[in-house]
């Protein structure tokens, strides 16, 4: 019995070590990817409206993920008049994508996901079928319309 138990645990450990994932590198890559996304939002999508929007990227949130542990990552807050929209990274280990950022406004929430090719998409629907659209200045505007008053 104890030998079988040892073998059972050994198989589990072998399986876990075979994933070959460098979790530290994955975490750092994720933090950098989120910074680049925020650069794109700040410097490209919002370039033409700089005087009517305040962008705050100073807040760091703590995220706890299995295998990776706790780490700090930037949030982005847009303030327009009396409204605020927060872009909050949820995690890099998510199903079917290479990371997820939640977007919260007064009206509702939206979800951005990082694709395997490092591009970003906006999730339009999960059910009955998954619908993603590439994040562009146009879809960014549509997303803000859906989450803001």
């Amino acid at each position, binding site marked *: 019995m104890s030998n079988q138990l040892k073998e059972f645990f050994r198989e589990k450990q072998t399986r876990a070590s075979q*994933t070959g994932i460098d979790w530290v590198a994955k975490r750092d890559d994720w933090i950098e990817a989120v910074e680049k996304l925020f650069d794109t939002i700040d410097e490209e999508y919002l370039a033409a409206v700089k005087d009517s929007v305040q962008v705050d990227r100073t807040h760091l949130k703590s995220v706890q*993920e*299995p295998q990776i542990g706790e780490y700090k990552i930037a949030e982005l807050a847009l303030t327009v008049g009396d409204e605020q929209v927060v872009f909050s990274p*949820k*995690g890099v*280990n*998510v*199903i*079917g*994508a*290479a990371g*997820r950022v939640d977007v919260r406004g007064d009206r509702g929430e939206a*979800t951005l*996901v990082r694709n*395997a090719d490092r591009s970003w998409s906006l*999730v339009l629907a*999960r*059910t*009955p*079928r*998954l619908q993603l659209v590439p994040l562009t200045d146009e879809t960014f505007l549509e997303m803000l319309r859906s989450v803001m008053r």
Partner: protein
Amino acid sequence: MARLHLKSVLSEDEQDLNEIWEWYVLQNMLIGDEAVNTLDALLSGSASIASRYFGKTRDELDEFFAYQRSELGQVTMLILLAAAEAALRVDYIVRIIENKKDAVSKQFSEIYKLQKLEVGLDDQILEIWKENSATPEIKAAIGESRGALRLRNWLAHGRYWKPKLGREYDPQNVFELCDELLKFLGIR
């Protein structure tokens, strides 16, 4: 007088406790398999996974599957208790049909003359069984089942109030108390 016409009201579709339990075990296992497949997809980065899981984190998946298991447990407890109720009510009708002469059947027959099939489970069927129970074990099993009727009512009426159940229930102990009751009463 035999009341054979009563046979026509019986559907014979009532569920057996063991069948419900086997169904529950299979559904619970399927949820477990789905959870394992989903967690494997999370770790491997696989994109070939049902869209309902897309973008979920480990914590969100754990919460999702805990909810599925919890709901399965609630449904299972309800149908176990409903099956036990069905067995008790079928037994009531069969005793009337067969015009049995034991003490319980005689009391059932008196109720039938006045109320036909509109008989109360708690205050009549179980109460008569309790009055005619020979041992403290049977009385205790009846008492446990009457307590579980509060759970059954709460589940059956949509769980909209805060229940005062007096104890913790799960599918295992609800199966055991239903099984014990019906065996003690000679209905299983």
